[in-house]
């Protein structure tokens, strides 16, 4: 896999990405993260919580997908009122991005899956 720092740097430069993280799939702990873009001064940093819960959610989605005999989930997107959380599995880690509502989600998806694919090779 490309250096994890390079992965988060690539993902964090996609327009609309607020934060990009590489997170341990089993423990939900942040392995590598970009800076938080556009966060309000003094506001609580959401990255640690998002990383842990997104990795947890992805593990549940994987089990649901498996139960439905659909195989490994390729891409998970959680749409919320003020943006999206995108997750892609990449072996022992998951890639997590926090994205604004107006971001180019197709580009986010493509770049995240490319990064994950690079990890498999």
């Amino acid at each position, binding site marked *: 896999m490309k250096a994890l720092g390079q992965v988060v740097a690539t993902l964090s430069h996609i327009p609309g990405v607020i934060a990009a993280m590489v997170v*341990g799939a*089993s423990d939900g702990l942040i392995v590598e993260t970009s800076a938080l873009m556009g966060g309000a001064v003094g506001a609580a940093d959401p990255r640690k919580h998002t990383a842990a819960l997104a*990795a*947890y959610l992805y593990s549940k989605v994987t089990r649901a997908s498996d139960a439905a005999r659909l195989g490994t989930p390729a891409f998970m997107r959680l749409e919320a009122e003020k943006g999206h959380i995108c997750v892609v599995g990449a072996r022992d880690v998951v890639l997590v991005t926090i994205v604004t509502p107006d971001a180019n989600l197709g580009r986010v998806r493509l770049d995240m899956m490319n990064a994950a694919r690079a990890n498999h090779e």
Partner: protein
Amino acid sequence: MSDPTVAEAWVAAPLRRLMEDARLISGVLLYPTGRAVGQFGFSNAADVMSICALTSAINASARELGRQLDGKPFYEMHHAGADRQVFMARAAAGGQELLFVGVFDRESSLGVVEIYFAEFQKALETLRPEKQVAGARPSGDFEGELNRSLDALFGPIGKP
């Protein structure tokens, strides 16, 4: 999942929330001396006492180890077993130090446990442990019942 059983009522609500949010299998909140404050996931009081004794010892060892290796006590400890994992960390309520030890499996993760434990710590900080009543004592035929219990367990004096 069974409800927490608590020796001190003030801790019931935050302990229940931690148990549910972090999806812990079992856990014990205790004073560093090894006295249990509340627990969930155990049905045998003797097991809880053993966990408390060991947690108290681990805390003392880890604190000293942290001091010698890092110049200050370790903040938390985590051990990943084959199926289950143990998380141990300190908290405080009303200036009184407390220890928590919890067990989780693949239904949770260290990251999830950490974030909900942080919320648990914040919740405890606003609470106050109950004061033990000085001089409080059981009443009734205490001496008589005590002697009967001791006879039953250890045999009458002079007849081992």
